[in-house]
């Protein structure tokens, strides 16, 4: 399936949940927040959230800013 992650297209085999995606991206254990199709996904639900073709994801972190 094709996902849009932080503006880029990413191709992944199904089935895949949000937790798998974060591992795949090498972001496990990092302090993140995820918006999926415009909705905030609580950290606790990552494993339960199956991804499907066309999903739009924003994965963000805190960085230096004023």
């Amino acid at each position, binding site marked *: 399936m094709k996902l849009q992650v932080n503006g880029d297209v990413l191709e992944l085999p199904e089935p895949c949940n949000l937790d798998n995606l974060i591992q795949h*991206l090498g972001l496990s254990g*990092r*302090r993140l*927040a995820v*918006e999926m199709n415009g909705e*905030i996904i609580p950290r606790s639900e990552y494993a339960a959230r199956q991804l499907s073709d066309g999903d739009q994801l924003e994965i*963000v972190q805190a960085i*230096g*800013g*004023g």
Partner: protein
Amino acid sequence: MSNNTNPLKIAGHDYQSRLLVGTGKYKDIEQTRAAIEASGAEIVTVAIRRTNIGQNPGEPNLLDVLPPSQYTILPNTAGCYTAEDALRTCRLARELLDGHSLVKLEVLGDPKTLYPDMQATFIAAEQLVKENFQVMVYCMDDPIACKRLEEMGCVAVMPLAAPIGSGLGIQNRYNILTIVENAKVPILVDAGVGTASDAAIAMELGCDGVLMNTAIAEAKDPVLMARAMKKAIEAGREAFLAGRMPRRRYASASSPLDGTIN
């Protein structure tokens, strides 16, 4: 001596430091840490940005050196030019910080001045308050607008002194003074401070605090400037509480006139 240790109260929390600092523009994360420690700040702003996919996982993370256990993290909406982007950024920030709902709202109107779009700021502020965010809001030094934002339920109002990163100091002291006189919530000068005396002036006008980033990060020696700013904020606050002497056009001798020899 009158007690000047009354803390700064924002959204029910007490802060001993009246200096709030940003975390951008530093050489590296270690300089960030050292400067912020020297500043004595308890509230530090951070930006919310997309993770760099595939970045080195070992790379130190800002929140590792500024642990939320030790600092109040204030996520901002820097870079947002619409109310909608600002709202999405705040919601992501709240999730990122485990439900911590204090945010710094800025909706920008133009990349040249980075001045706020006040219409969009009103819309975003109103929605954020509805969603139970505790909103600290960056705005013009417009007394009417500042009062309106307070009435909407913002927990702190943060008028600019001058354009973000300009270092020009307070351009309109009468406006800041009027905003302070009208306010029931903390007024923090946000943006435009360039050096220590600028920060002292803001506090002497009666502001409750100052938020700055560039003035420290772009000094030749950021850590020393951070220390200077800490002292300047305290000096300005104490001078405000001490009640300055009246200005006089003419001189007034400091030594008695009588008893001079001749």
